[in-house]
């Protein structure tokens, strides 16, 4: 019996007649962490959004029955236009006060923090709040789109340590989009190198080689070499 929580076969995504992703197949088991690595514009964010059902596609995307998915988008602007407290932001998703309190504690915030204005917390705190928000309702899978810009990380937990801990404590399956090679090695059991079509996929130590990387980022690397 297959234990796959997600099965993707021959996935093709076209947006306004442009092919963004082609010929992607992979399987994901419960508790696994998958990273998706690739240059800008490679279709990583589109892949996550397609898995969430935002876009139409060809091929097969099959989630295990009853699977709940949480999502942390790549870029959410700060809420500057209107006042909303951290707690009220969570109340948009759940009415369960106890759950809000517990989730906040899980990502390292005390109860007082919930009264803060969402627009006035730091970007590192905001990132953690968004992860906590995605965890409301106890999802089995977390899709995390890493922000392109750096984030100031306060406290001793980095985002990845936090994700690592959550993965263990909640037995989460995680799909993570990243640019950071060290994250791929430290964090994931499986990596998909994506540049519109899959360049390589498998265990990071086996498939990430100088050769596959230059294929993945090929043109950029050549570009820099010409400069010298």
């Amino acid at each position: 019996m297959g234990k796959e929580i997600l099965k993707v076969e021959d996935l093709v995504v076209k947006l306004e007649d442009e092919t963004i992703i082609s010929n992607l197949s992979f399987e994901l088991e419960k508790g696994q962490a998958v990273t998706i690595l690739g240059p800008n514009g490679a279709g990583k964010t589109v892949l996550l959004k397609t898995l969430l059902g935002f876009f139409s596609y060809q091929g097969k995307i099959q989630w295990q029955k009853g699977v709940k998915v949480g999502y942390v988008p790549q870029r959410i602007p700060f809420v500057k236009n209107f006042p909303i407290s951290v707690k009220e932001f969570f109340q948009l998703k759940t009415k369960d006060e106890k759950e809000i309190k517990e989730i906040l504690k899980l990502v390292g915030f005390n109860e007082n923090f919930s009264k803060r204005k969402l627009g006035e917390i730091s970007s590192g705190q905001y990132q953690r709040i968004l992860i906590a928000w995605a965890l409301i309702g106890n999802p089995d899978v977390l899709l995390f789109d890493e922000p392109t810009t750096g984030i100031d990380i306060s406290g001793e937990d980095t985002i990845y340590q936090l994700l690592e801990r959550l993965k263990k404590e909640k037995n989460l399956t995680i799909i993570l989009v990243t640019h950071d090679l060290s994250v791929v090695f430290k964090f994931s059991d499986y990596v998909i190198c994506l540049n519109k079509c899959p360049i390589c996929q498998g265990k990071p130590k086996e498939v990430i080689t100088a050769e596959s990387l230059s294929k993945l980022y090929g043109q950029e690397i050549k570009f820099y070499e010409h400069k010298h």
Partner: protein
Amino acid sequence: MLQFFLSLISAIFIGGVAGYLGSLMLSKKMTIVIDPLSHLALPGVALALIFQKDISLGAFLFLFLGSILIWFFEQKTKLPTETIIAILFTISLAITFLFLSEHEIEEALVGNISKIGKVESLIIVLVSIFVFFLIKKIYPKLTLISISEDLAMAEKIDLKKYQFLYILSISAIVAMGVKFVGGLLVAGLTVLPAASARNLSKNLKTFKLLSSLFGILSAILGIFLFQLTNFPAGPLIVISGFLIFLISIILKKT
């Protein structure tokens, strides 16, 4: 005396629900639609005056038509919404000026409160209550949409549906508001209380409450000033809203 009472009651209800709606104008994109939309109501008001029908009805029909036109032009041309709205705004003013006599134009632009009858007041109260509950219902989802459309979509929220209900609420308020303050000033009923409330709130709950309260307060103040001075009530209501805004700036803790 009865006329005064009817005006006051109607103004309180419209003011309150307009203020509440104002607090829902959470993003720039959401705020930007009220002004042009209210101008779209003008040709409807004009035609209603000519055919001696209820001006709110005329306004509402044209608002509805206008929203559909905006959507249609957007689909066909890919021009930015602001451009399309500006086009419709100009043409609505042109049509209004074409048809109306000077006196009627004044009524269309700044409203006329002394005409509110018993039945109209009752309708205003009922529609206000309906719109209040409509806004209350769509508030959380629209808040999430304005924070992040990605998050909203992940929650399987139908963006189009909520944008439509939002436009519908605005249309209803504008249609009722034109009677009081006219097509040019109706945006003031929503924007001013919300701006004042924003100055004084730390969370959504106070923001909503204060915005509705300030809407009611400017309506009461405006109607009383109207009774005292006999200047048109519409501008007085908006000026009251502005006074509250000034006070909110003074009270704002930095």
